[in-house]
């Protein structure tokens, strides 16, 4: 009886501290935004390019799911960033500015056009990473201050 009581208490504490018990219908699936694209300081009139292979400044998303699952990756990309007092700064994405790595290694990517859907396969461990770069194009009389916009990645579980 005492053992049973401790078991019940232990299970209750465990349940309060842990993530949800996953139902029997399928496994959990997680998409996380790890790092935004970081341009840092830019100079007026001088384009600033961030490569998708830049380990410190490229954007990164991690995917965790079911092994060998095919996922469709679709970006919604901004054309400009919003800054102070309604100022905007154009931003561009090239045809190979996105990359997918099954091994989650920035140096081992398959490049793709972020303006087109891309289908990737998760690894044997059910993982994959998406990297993205971009080019900020400040004009010569660009107003000083912070500029930002949002990149949205949609991951569709396909099968």
């Amino acid at each position: 009886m005492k053992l049973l009581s401790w078991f019940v208490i232990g299970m209750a504490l465990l349940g309060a501290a842990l993530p949800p018990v996953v139902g029997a219908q399928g496994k959990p699936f997680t998409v996380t935004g790890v790092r935004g694209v970081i341009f840092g300081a830019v100079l007026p009139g001088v384009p600033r390019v961030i490569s998708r292979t830049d380990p410190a400044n490229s954007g990164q998303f991690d995917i965790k799911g079911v092994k060998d699952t095919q996922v469709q990756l679709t970006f919604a990309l901004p054309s400009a960033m919003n800054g102070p007092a309604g100022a905007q700064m154009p931003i561009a994405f090239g045809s190979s500015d996105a990359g997918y790595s099954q091994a989650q290694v920035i140096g081992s990517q398959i490049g793709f056009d972020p303006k087109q859907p891309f289908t990737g396969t998760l690894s044997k461990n059910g993982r994959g990473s998406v990297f993205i770069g971009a080019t900020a194009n400040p004009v010569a009389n660009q107003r000083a201050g912070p500029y930002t916009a949002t990149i949205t990645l949609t991951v569709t579980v396909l099968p």
Partner: protein
Amino acid sequence: MRRVLWLAAAIGLGASSLHAQGVMVAPHAVYIDHRVRSGSVLLYNPGTEPVEVTISTLFGYPVTDSTGAITLRTVDAPDSTLPSALAWIQAFPRRLTVAPLERQTVRLLARPPVGLADGEYWVRLMIAAKAGQIPIVGVSDTTAIQVGLTLEVRTIIGVQYRKGAVTTGVALSNVRAQLRGDTLVTWSRLVRQGNAAFVGTVRGIVVDSTGATRASFASPLGVYFSMEPRIASIIGKLPRGRYWLRYEVVAEREDLDPALVLRAPPARDSVQLFVP
């Protein structure tokens, strides 16, 4: 035991993402029975900031493009010829905030029309997660131009609603295969049978002239109408010679409860491979 393994997996996922932005969605596929007419999805925030979540629904199903890549074909306003549950499956709540290390449940409620025919009906659930803004470094310097892009993530999972007698199957034809260096690339034509999506696995085994297995692959697949998927697998370089690829499509899935996977006879074919 199975439940314990899922729990362990969930703990591992949560622990490794503590500093990231996003939510864990479980399960990755939802099945609703007409007798119950409801389902649920669990959201867990493994991060350190609250995550704003927006839930929406859409209709779509996987197809293949001209290269064999699988993509989601979406239909904004599906007509009566499509098995859509878009008009009558709703999610509650549609907006919620998941606190750090907390979980929330999203309920799915079905209100099917009277006289709904037996069969399977589909909808997709989109879970949009937005965490706090990533700060732009150096914003205190008002004379400089500081630029950064923040991230938002959306996850789309499938929801299948089943009423009455549901059957499925797959017809396999036109199997092709090529060895490109260390990669085996296969194509086939798959046509769904019955009144429900075929959810299963494609398996391939490469055997040599003695019948010994030299390589194998497996890929989960869902055939909603018809498709011609291209599957590329790294199998390593094979020595010169003739081989056979034994290709089969089976109604089995490691990631789903077997009770949810509709039974269907396997479809098989073989093609010869030659390494000069």
